[in-house]
């Protein structure tokens, strides 16, 4: 059900530019206004998210710890698993963001007869890293459409990525890798019954959207070539805030690709994809495990009117004396002096 819903939505999204550009001829809407709108939503939406999260108080200290915390000098401290200083937290974040360290620890639970056993499961890590790294490289390579003169490092990236020169124009390695990664991530949700049970439309939809973007891109690269010079004119105009419609004819496939990208951008701040900034705000990752060294004060705490023992004692003094309960005179005086 979730899956079918997501497929239908993606197909409808593909239909939008087909009808909008193909039938109605609204080229400037689809190549100038919608992209600017979508990227504004992406931009301001994400900044809003960041500020919103940064304003949320952090009532408890809840770092995930899976190693020995810093204690006596002769006990070995596990720096990454139980960071005690901000420096160690930065290191841990670095490995998390760039290498997906916590996925690398992923386990699979299985039954061996009646015994529950755990095995290492690196597949999710592999699929995720393939997908994310390829995505990043593809984004950087796409700068060649937006920038002129193109800096040397983009040319080098492009050259290395098409190094094997299979076909003309040569296929990019990251294209193959991103498709492999996406296929795995998609099949995982379909085939593994546990994961499948947990998968909502909001998981299928972004995945299918990105699969749609990558597929249309690869189709353009290998089979249905668009006029890339015209696309460069368009994209360069957009990036320099001087948008012009190129004279050359741009194929519908490009509009589909572009519209899906715009959808992704506009959808980003409202979807699970915000984990891109969310990971930095994740308290289980970004807090140091220094509970014993520094007191964490709940920012929600407000001054509470409470009764101290001495005040209570004052109130019930006569009853207490009558019942023969000892009165703490000295201690209360001491406490008053200190206060």
């Amino acid at each position, binding site marked *: 059900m979730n899956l079918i819903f997501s497929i239908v939505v993606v197909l409808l999204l593909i239909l939008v530019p087909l009808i909008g550009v193909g039938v109605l001829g609204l080229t400037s809407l689809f190549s100038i206004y919608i992209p600017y709108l979508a990227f504004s939503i992406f931009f301001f939406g994400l900044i809003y998210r960041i*500020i919103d999260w940064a304003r949320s108080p*952090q009532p408890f200290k809840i770092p995930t710890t899976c190693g020995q915390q810093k204690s006596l000098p002769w006990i070995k401290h596990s720096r990454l698993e139980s960071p005690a200083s901000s420096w160690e937290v930065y290191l841990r974040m670095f490995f998390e963001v760039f290498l997906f360290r916590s996925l690398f620890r992923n386990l699979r639970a299985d039954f061996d007869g009646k015994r529950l056993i755990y095995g290492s499961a690196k597949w999710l890590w592999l699929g995720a890293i393939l997908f994310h790294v390829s995505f990043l490289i593809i984004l950087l390579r796409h*700068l060649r459409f937006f920038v002129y*003169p193109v800096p040397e490092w983009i040319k080098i990236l492009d050259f290395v990525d098409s190094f094997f020169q299979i076909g003309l*124009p040569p296929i990019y390695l990251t294209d193959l890798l991103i498709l492999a990664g996406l296929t795995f991530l998609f099949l995982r949700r379909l085939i593994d019954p546990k994961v499948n049970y947990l998968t909502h439309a909001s998981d299928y939809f972004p995945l299918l959207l990105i699969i749609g973007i990558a597929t249309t891109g690869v189709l353009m690269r290998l089979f249905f070539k668009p*006029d890339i010079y*015209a696309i460069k004119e368009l994209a360069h105009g957009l990036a320099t805030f001087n948008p012009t419609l190129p004279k050359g004819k741009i194929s519908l496939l490009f509009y589909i690709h572009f519209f899906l990208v715009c959808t992704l951008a506009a959808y980003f701040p409202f979807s699970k994809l915000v984990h891109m*900034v969310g990971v930095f705000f994740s308290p289980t990752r970004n807090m140091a495990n220094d509970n014993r060294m520094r007191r964490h004060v709940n920012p929600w705490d407000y001054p509470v009117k409470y009764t101290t023992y001495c005040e209570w004692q004052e109130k019930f003094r006569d009853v207490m004396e009558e019942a023969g309960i000892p009165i703490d005179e000295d201690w209360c005086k001491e406490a008053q002096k200190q206060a």
Partner: protein
Amino acid sequence: MYNTGKVIVGIIVFIIFFTIPFWLNLGKVKALPKPELPKDETKCVEDTDYMRAYHMQLLHEWRTRKIRKMQVYYMNHEGKLYIMSLQRTCMKCHTSKEKFCDRCHQVVVTHPDCWRCHIAPEEVKK
């Protein structure tokens, strides 16, 4: 806001990263160079839209047919025959590699290695 300093650094990094195209263009904006079209011819091998998008596939096809299948002529959609050759057909009309092919390829960033072996018209003249 909590951790204001760090959050602001984060927002700045985010903004800079997603506006890279703008920064890289800043101060260098100029019109994209246009390839110089042949003056005494009016028609390419196939129609212009097709050539702009598909010329690399056409060249690929020519190369395969010429070298693997020993064919010599290519018939375009109007029934006109061309000898399948990079140097002797394309470069007869497009008399300059630098002013035609390269101008375009530098804009879209692609690096065909054809000219490592094939001889550009510029070099013939030298």
